[in-house]
């Protein structure tokens, strides 16, 4: 795949570009995320008549949230939950949100996070005395 097969768009144009793909009859092949020094790059791959086309957005590491495309491609929910769990990307409008429980990883956000993870709530004194805290990841 040459770099020109990837259509890099600003975040605001993502949903519109994805709708265009759906209206043209494309199939959502995958959503892939990659950690870069400047943030997380999210690539949406589409297939039409065996031709692959890609739309890409870059999420800076400042807590910027990704709009869900699950209202356009219902099957996107699994990919988006995966990205949420592995890359710590906040996603708005998920049709089915597993709230960080899609994968049960022992390391939270193994590929880093675009947002500072919320500090774990302090256990109540009585619970803390009862035993060690449970790992809920």
């Amino acid at each position: 795949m040459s770099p020109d097969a990837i259509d890099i768009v600003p975040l605001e144009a993502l949903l519109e570009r994805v709708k265009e793909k759906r209206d043209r009859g494309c199939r959502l092949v995958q959503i892939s995320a990659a950690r870069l020094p400047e943030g997380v790059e999210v690539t949406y791959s589409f297939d039409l008549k065996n031709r692959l086309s890609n739309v890409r957005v870059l999420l800076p590491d400042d807590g910027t949230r990704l709009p869900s495309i699950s209202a356009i491609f219902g099957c996107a929910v699994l990919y988006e939950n995966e990205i949420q769990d592995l890359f710590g990307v906040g996603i708005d409008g998920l049709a089915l949100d597993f709230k960080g429980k899609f994968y049960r990883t022992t390391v939270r956000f193994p590929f880093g996070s675009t947002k500072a993870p919320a500090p774990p709530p302090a256990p109540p004194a009585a619970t803390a005395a009862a035993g060690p805290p449970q790992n809920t990841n």
Partner: protein
Amino acid sequence: MARTVIPFGPQHPVLPEPVHLDLVIEDEKVVEARPSIGFIHRGLEKLAEKKDYNEFLFVAERICGICSAIHGQTYCQAVETLMNVSVPPRAVYLRTIWGELSRIHSHLLWLGLMADGMGFENLFMHSWRIRERVLNIIEATTGARVIFGVCKVGGVRRDIEPDAIPGILAELDSIEKDMRDVTKVFLNDKSVKARLCGVGVVSKQEAWDLGAVGPMLRASGVAQDMRTLGYAAFSDIPVVPITRTEGDCYARCAVRCEELFQSVEIIRQAFNRIPPGEIAIKVTGNPAGETITRTEQPRGEVVYHLKANGTKHLQRFRVRTPTFANLPVMLKILPGCDLADVPMIVLTIDPCISCTER
């Protein structure tokens, strides 16, 4: 009517691997299915940051035990694309032969599991008996039965000697005859048809919109097979996708049955055309750039997305496996089905959860 939630999995007789569904039922009808996966997430993609790109091939081959050969092949193809490496033609044919043997043993494994799920134990044992003979060919040619480890960046590690080819082809003829007998039962037996026909129907449009791949997509009438892209030896050996239009469990079973014979024919053609010559070239340097490579696994299209920055470690290794793509369509067809049909519907996507979670 009162609703009941029935947990299905992660441990269930029809599930070779753990996936969990909360089935919301009214009387005997499923009205909602809530999935839960993540029991065996292994973090293999993250491991690419720590392993040399050549070492990582052994990890890629272990994403799945059943599709191991094609995982290795796809990984090598992706790295070779990044490094602009041309693989010797003989190696390309050998990869194709082992890939199709892998498809046959995967489909036979699935047919056996399907028969077992229906309670047709005799058919299950016959399917796996034939599969053993395919594994014997794989063992004789690669030294291993399931995870072959024959691919490497730049070619393959082993050759098949010309003297061995007539024996393999004769064995394949015999296996094909046995497969005809077994698939006749899958396609014509009254009890099998009663369990599969009209169950879990997916329309062509639904299958496409929900991103289904492989036999799941082709059984709904979409003629899509990544082998038509012409990778490996498929530029010389054209593949016509096998399709059905019913979109039900029976159609998905029938597509896999017919693909068994298609793969046998591909192997025959590959052995007839395999050119002499070397089986690998030396590859030096490190990969750089980005590629998205697609091949056809037994379960459907697999997607490898690689990013490399010229170091010995990949910057990003991401795999979208066929089962991951087929889960949404499975969740779509479960509501409305009878509770007793859930195992059949789940099985007909040929779920591989290890692949899915990587």
